[in-house]
């Protein structure tokens, strides 16, 4: 069974034409993979659809802008996947 990381990495590779093998759990989507905000909307759409969730991008952006969080907390692949797993778990518990 594919892990969350595998699914998200596949989505990013396909959406942004990034070689799949270059995407690792330590990759930062913005700093390392050079994904811009518009491409990230496509990725968010694909993730929302694939996992049946709604990535809280507005909330994340607000926290980063307010200095309450860092981009690493949301956009390093392993952290992004952890957030996704939390959203899936919250959906299942609802």
């Amino acid at each position, binding site marked *: 069974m594919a892990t969350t990381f595998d699914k998200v990495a596949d989505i990013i590779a396909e959406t942004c034409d990034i070689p799949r093998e270059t995407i690792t759990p330590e990759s930062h989507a913005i700093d390392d993979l050079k994904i811009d905000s*518009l491409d990230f*909307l*496509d990725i*968010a*759409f694909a993730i*929302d*659809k694939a996992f049946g969730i*709604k*990535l*809280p*991008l*507005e*909330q994340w*952006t607000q926290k980063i802008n307010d200095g309450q969080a860092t981009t690493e907390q949301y956009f390093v692949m392993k952290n992004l996947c952890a957030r996704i797993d939390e959203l899936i778990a919250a959906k299942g518990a609802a």
Partner: protein
Amino acid sequence: MRLEYFQMLDRFVDVKADERWIKSESTVPDQSPVFEGHFPGYPLMPGVLLIENMAQTCGWLVSAITGFSGLPVLAGVKEAKVRAAVFPGMTFTTEGRIVHDGSGYAIADGKVRGPDGAIADARLTYRIIPYPSPEFQNTMVTWAKQLNFPLEEFRK
């Protein structure tokens, strides 16, 4: 329709709020400065303005489902197809359907149809940005009412 002012929609004619679908209607003016260049002696509605028509129809729909909490701005156009010509005097409808309302963004499908069938279609991506001022938000709501936008259907 006032092409030179980008006022693309004449009115909204149908809505299915529960399906997040809406239909607008537009009649192409007989004369417009746009036709002086597109094309001299052969006035033809520019395809990019048909895309703008879909963008405005779907944009109002995004505004409605988000309760006019932000301004949807066009961020992406995919799979745009212009299938038939549109000439001055022609009336056509534009349908918009929300495909996904994400956090701070939305995806919608637009379809333009004329008396003889499909004219254009596209998938549109919107960023939803804060209104520049409360006054601007009020302006948008007032404008929606002028277009007969069925605001009450989305408040149920």
